[in-house]
């Protein structure tokens, strides 16, 4: 895995780039349901530099998967609002037509390893065909050279080459996961969105996949957005951490600042609820449940569960910059 | 926390009511049921009364304006007939004879709800003589001059009741065999599955016809009605049993079934109190969707002359006239097709309702998980 491969040699990304790889501003994605409008992604802004990994942490139902879909514009039918800016290499792609977005963003700039990647492979097509497919579509390759590249990508993530001739159901969960990662890598995009990439896997397989992802980041200079609820695992990859709560980011900062010392009361509670293997510390939990994304409370959305709530929390706090380049959406840091 | 507890039944009902076509279907079914329950009362004649002088009479026109164009209480003109050059009877309105339509008139005696003897009919001309020219045949008459409207209403009783009745039997069979098969598995399961396979390896209609042909011709109408229900239900239980078996196979492995088992619940308790309620939505939906098939099967059977037979009648049986001299009947007596539209409306209504119910119960069904 260490030796320089052909795929690797073709990398010439990132260096000397003026604008960040990805800039998201005020991104909103609301859905219409019979109960009302779900504000799944509510004014999310962040910047991701190249060869960086951003871990987006949140509990189930906080809108983190919707955020991934909003970035790749994979919208369901019942979209209510989809607005904001998504800049890739300084270019706002939001006004782009569906066709242009499909051709110039999907899998050329950004690829994705979707949640429950086991189901991301089409059961009736050969794994190799599915890995090679983006090359044929986006790079106009013929089938033979596309397969050759697919084989390289497979080797890179540790999938034996003869597995490409098989179908998804013939592979174990870990192998399927690797195949999906190979598929995300094959067109050499700058950014890979990883949506709970290991949550269904065993501890050892999970650790193996994490090693693969680290290798790819290190050797191929890729950027990641890692979406997960598993705080311990997120630390294996993250350069930056964003905490998502009820459709919004409540904290954003560098990994080395965040893990030892989270700022937002929610982040603190969340961190305190993580059981440790090597450290004996009392655990904490958050009473109550997250607010509904239909008609979320005005003001701070965490206020109802917050131990340090005070009168100002009736109003919605802005993202407040704290020293060290950290951002936190909490009045305590005003 | 302020939300009131809502059971799944209530949720399903709410979701169902949002479905406009489904609700419409439900309303139509209620209307048709009322129509057939009060059939004797609503129909102006007894369904067997033969108006010998008015064979193949076309639907009677109801007039609201008299000869001079003035608005009038609704009336019909007297009916007279003559032969055309080919010898067919042609009916004409005799504008000299005016018969006003009356409500709650005395007519052929009948028993309301098969119980209360009476002879009051909702409407009519009040003429008791079957050969009087003052007749009101809303849908025309058949080859022996029976009023098709009255016959259609009465026939609806058979057409609409045969579905639910046959379904009740076949569902009981299906729950019993499907339940045993799915919950206990093993040898019984194998045997029941093979049974269903053999049953399913015959196409429905031919086997239905062959079975119906077993019924000897001279049976009393009530008996042959019951036997036809039996035949329909024997053919119908296989598919549902198979689906229920699948459901039970899934359900018995569900965590809550295991929990009940760990609590020490008996098999009977697990099946009836814990598992069966979960299949209820499936059963209701498959029942609603099963009824149209049964109505159609009965209609086909009776149409072909193997089902309900004279003097009893059903919508399919009313169309039986077309199996002989099809072209003549179509060309000269097209009103005989009217009962067919009732079949369509009833089946459509059940289909819409079943579809809406399926949508409404979908997220609550076990298969989804």
């Amino acid at each position, binding site marked *: 895995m260490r030796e320089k491969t052909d795929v690797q040699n073709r990398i010439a990304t990132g260096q000397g780039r003026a604008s960040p790889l990805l800039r998201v501003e005020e991104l909103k994605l609301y859905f219409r349901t019979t109960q009302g409008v779900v504000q799944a992604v509510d004014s999310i802004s962040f910047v991701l530099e190249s060869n960086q990994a951003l871990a987006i942490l949140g*509990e189930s139902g906080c809108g983190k998967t919707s955020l991934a879909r909003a970035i790749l514009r994979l919208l369901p039918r019942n979209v209510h609002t989809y607005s904001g800016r998504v800049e890739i290499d300084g270019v706002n792609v939001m006004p782009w037509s569906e066709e242009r977005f499909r051709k110039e963003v999907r899998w050329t700039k950004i690829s994705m390893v979707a949640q429950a990647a086991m189901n991301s492979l089409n059961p009736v097509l050969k794994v190799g065909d599915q890995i090679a497919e983006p090359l044929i579509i986006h790079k106009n390759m013929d089938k033979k050279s596309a397969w050759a590249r697919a084989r390289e990508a497979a080797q890179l993530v540790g999938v034996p080459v003869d597995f490409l001739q098989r179908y998804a159901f013939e592979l174990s969960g870990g192998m399927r996961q690797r195949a999906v990662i190979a598929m995300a890598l094959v067109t050499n995009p700058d950014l890979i969105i990883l949506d709970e990439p290991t949550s269904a896997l065993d501890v*050892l397989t999970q650790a193996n996949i994490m090693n693969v992802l680290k290798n790819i980041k290190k050797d191929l200079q890729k950027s990641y957005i890692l979406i997960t609820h598993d705080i311990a695992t997120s630390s*294996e990859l993250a350069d930056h951490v964003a905490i998502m709560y009820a459709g919004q980011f409540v904290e954003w900062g560098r990994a080395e600042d965040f893990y030892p010392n989270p700022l937002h009361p929610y982040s603190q509670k969340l961190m305190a609820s993580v*059981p440790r293997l090597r450290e004996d510390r009392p655990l904490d939990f958050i009473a109550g449940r997250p607010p509904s994304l239909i008609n979320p409370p005005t003001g701070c959305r965490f206020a109802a569960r917050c131990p340090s709530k005070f009168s100002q929390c009736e109003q919605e706090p802005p993202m407040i910059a704290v020293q060290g380049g950290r951002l936190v959406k909490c009045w305590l840091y005003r | 926390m302020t939300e009131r507890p809502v059971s799944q039944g209530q949720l399903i009902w709410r979701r169902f009511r949002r479905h406009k076509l489904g609700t419409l279907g439900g309303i139509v079914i209620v209307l048709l049921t009322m129509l057939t329950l009060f059939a004797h009362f609503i129909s102006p004649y007894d369904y067997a009364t033969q108006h010998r002088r008015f064979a193949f009479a076309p639907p009677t026109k109801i007039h609201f304006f008299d000869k001079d164009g003035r608005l009038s209480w609704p009336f019909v003109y007297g009916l007279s007939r003559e032969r055309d050059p080919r010898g067919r009877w042609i009916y004409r309105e005799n504008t000299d004879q005016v018969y006003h339509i009356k409500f709650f008139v005395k007519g052929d005696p009948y028993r309301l709800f098969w119980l209360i003897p009476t002879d009051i009919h909702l409407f009519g001309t009040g003429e008791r003589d079957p050969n009087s020219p003052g007749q009101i045949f809303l849908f025309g008459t058949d080859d022996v001059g029976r009023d098709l409207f009255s016959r259609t209403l009465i026939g609806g009783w058979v057409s609409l009741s045969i579905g639910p009745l046959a379904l009740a039997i076949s569902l009981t069979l299906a729950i019993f065999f499907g339940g045993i098969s799915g919950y206990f598995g093993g040898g019984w399961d194998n045997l029941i599955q093979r049974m269903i396979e053999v049953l399913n390896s015959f196409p429905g209609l031919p086997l239905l016809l062959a079975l119906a042909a077993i019924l000897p011709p001279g049976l009393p109408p009530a008996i042959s009605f019951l036997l036809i229900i039996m035949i329909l239900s024997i053919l119908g239980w296989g598919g549902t049993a198979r689906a229920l078996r699948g459901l039970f196979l899934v359900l018995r492995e569900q965590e809550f079934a295991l929990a009940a088992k760990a609590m020490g619940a008996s098999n009977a308790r697990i099946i009836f109190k814990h598992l069966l309620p979960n299949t209820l939505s499936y059963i209701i939906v498959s029942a609603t969707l099963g009824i149209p098939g049964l109505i159609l099967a009965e209609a086909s059977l009776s149409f072909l002359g193997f089902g309900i037979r004279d003097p009893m009648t059903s919508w399919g049986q009313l169309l039986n006239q077309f199996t002989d001299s099809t072209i003549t009947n179509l060309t000269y007596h097209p009103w005989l097709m009217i009962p067919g539209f009732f079949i369509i409306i009833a089946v459509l209504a059940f289909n819409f309702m079943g579809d809406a119910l399926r949508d409404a119960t979908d997220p609550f069904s076990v298969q989804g998980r």
Partner: protein
Amino acid sequence: MQDTMLLSVKDLHTHFELRRGAFGRAGFVRAVDGVSFELRHGEAIAVVGESGCGKSTLARTILGLYRPTKGRVLFEGRPLDGDLRWYRAQIGYVQQDPYGALPPFMDVHRILTEPLVINNFRGNREQRIREVLEEVKLTPVEDFLHKFPHQLSGGQQQRLVIARAMILKPKFIVADEPVSMLDASVRVEILELLRGLQRSHDLTVIYITHDLSTVRYFAERIFVMYAGKLIEKAPVSELLKNPLHPYTQALLAAIPDPDPANAQTFKRVPPGEPPSLVNPPSGCRFHPRCPAFMAGLCDKEIPPEFEPSTGHFVECWLYR
């Protein structure tokens, strides 16, 4: 000595027949394949293993839901065979997926009444239901009595499942991955509830999990399960400090704590995947992945249980 043990499991095997089509038999899934251990009154132990190692089957066999193929389970010295009704009232079962574990068409009151009815609970049923709801902190009780499972949050559902398990005042609880389907912030709450109940009622608990990091907050002893066998048994602190089996060592190494330093380091993880339970490897089941593999021994002979230090058992030829 035997009699003071609440539960003893001796050489337990639970195999499932694999069928192919209507007739042919393709083999056996050896989900539990020779497991022995004993539990004292009031003891909490954890069984740790990856998914598919047979730990849920072990739980269900102990609960009497599956009949063992071979071996015995004794509860207070009495074997589990024949009619198990005497046993049902003394055990509680807490499952992984709380929503699936609750019958969707019953409300809270009905769900809690079921075990009382089934086991002929003598005494005030309503009062018992209230007591147990208060114990699991589903309060105020009136707010919950007539709710349906789909109206409760995941944490509340799991509390209800625990309440149901506790309502007959059992001596013994089997909790099969009770928190793995819950969000991180709720997990601790449920684990603490279970731990609190275990201590206050002097319950014996088997806590089954794939998540080693939660174990220290809950159990006194850990059993590590791999491919149908308990390969290592030790007190918690001893096992975390001094894991003996190469598999346990790998497992401990693979589990991260939230630490930014993780991003810079690579883990040493054995390659490959857990073996199939239909055709498990010969000899030690971990030998194809084991870094300390000794040819001619590990792939030939099944290692027996060794006890290198008191109370620390391991099935590995390294400690012979």
